[in-house]
């Protein structure tokens, strides 16, 4: 079953078409990686899927009408509420998803995020690694069917990256569907069941890692990344989450 299906999606910023008629689906139970250099439209695509940005063309269909109750999303910036502790952020996000968390559930969630000693610390004062872990915690506070993570490991040290990868792996074991964007091929190789390569607002190819490597006759995903994405680092969409 497809949780989300996007057909011929288009997004324009001023006179520039940043998403150029892309088609794709998110299948139940998979870990799907959205891959591409900075500024190719990954965040814009995610923003359209989540309903933050309306598409200028094409359609998006969801697996249920009350899909917002069943999606958890972490955007590129970690949007914690200033002046709130890690615990209070979990409680607040629970309320936003109509989930009333007990103190025990909050403690468990903090432990799952390896933040049991940081519950009273203001969330914005946590280290970047801790913030990213808490971000996944608040994203999954309501046990969503689909978890969307926009560059969850960007800017992290190897240990923090490893912890985030473990958390994403844990979501998959919990039978939650995950969509994450990345340009770290090592992370993608370890986690993803299926990949979508984007460049210049288009989907260059999609499929499972083995199939794609064989199809493009490359040694590994890094070579595939280089083949499918032209050098355009530094370009930025006007929409930048």
């Amino acid at each position, binding site marked *: 079953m497809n949780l989300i299906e996007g057909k011929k999606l288009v997004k324009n910023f001023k006179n520039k078409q940043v998403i150029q008629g892309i088609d794709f689906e998110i299948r139940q139970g998979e870990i799907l990686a959205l891959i591409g250099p900075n500024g190719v439209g990954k965040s814009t695509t995610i923003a359209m899927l989540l309903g933050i940005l309306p598409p200028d063309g094409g359609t998006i269909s969801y697996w249920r009408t009350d899909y917002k109750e069943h999606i958890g999303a972490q955007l590129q910036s*970690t949007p914690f509420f200033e002046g709130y502790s890690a615990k209070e952020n979990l409680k607040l996000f629970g309320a936003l998803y109509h989930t009333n968390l007990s103190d025990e559930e909050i403690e468990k969630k903090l432990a799952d995020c390896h933040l049991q000693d940081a519950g009273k610390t203001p969330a914005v004062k946590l280290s970047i690694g801790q913030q990213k872990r808490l971000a996944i915690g608040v994203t999954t506070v309501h046990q969503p069917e689909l978890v969307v993570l926009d560059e969850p490991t960007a800017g992290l040290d190897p240990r923090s990256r490893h912890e985030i990868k473990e958390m994403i792996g844990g979501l998959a074991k919990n039978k939650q569907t995950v969509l994450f964007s990345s340009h770290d091929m090592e992370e993608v190789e370890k986690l993803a069941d299926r990949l979508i390569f984007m460049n210049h607002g288009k989907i260059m190819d999609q499929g499972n890692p083995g199939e794609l490597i064989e199809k493009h006759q490359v040694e590994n995903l890094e070579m595939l990344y280089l083949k499918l994405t032209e050098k355009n680092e530094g370009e930025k969409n006007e929409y930048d989450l």
Partner: protein
Amino acid sequence: MNTIFSLSLKSAAREPFLLFWSILIPIGGTLILGFLVGNPGYAINITTGMMAMGILFYTFTTTVFSLLGQRRRGVYQLLKVTPMPLSRYIISVSGAWTLVSLICAMLVLTVGVVFFQLDLAFACVVKMGIVCVLGATGYVFFSFFVSGLCKTEAQTSIATNLIAMPLLLGSDAFYSLEAAPAWVKTVILLNPFQWLLKGLRSGFSGDNRDWAVSLAALLIFLGMALVLAVGSFKSSDY
């Protein structure tokens, strides 16, 4: 909604700007000016001036910065992803901020009553409280609009000063404007801060007509601020 309200209240109470601008300065100002002027009849003018100033600084200046911080962290983008309607979230946090400013204003009033032995009936306190709530809610909604216009803290600082200072100085909070030119008196009719003051003072004195007119003016301001806030959410990058 209750969780959001109670957490907002808790977080607002920890805000250092609140302690300084809406508690320490108004209370300190009330006491210092009150004793310096030394005129018991003028004490209520000073007390209500400080109450209104505290409300303005908290529900407008502090909240504009707070909203900017939340917006820049992507809080409002994320709210669009959650099933919580944005309007319910805004009502909850606005309610909490209004309640905090009401408590601060009542604290200032208590200091004025105790130190200057003001004779205040319970009905007057209720009337003044209603004025505080209407004025504070209007300023909170207005702060959503102003915050939507600002992209940086520097811009926010300029915008809040450009708005708050004329409101404050273009009122008779701390000096009489009886001798002001006619055009100044006309312009002052458009100043929502002056209506907040007038509402507080008429609530205290028991002048029901002035109190009702002030409430009506504050309601109009609240309605306009709400329209601006909604428009700002629809058209800006909130």
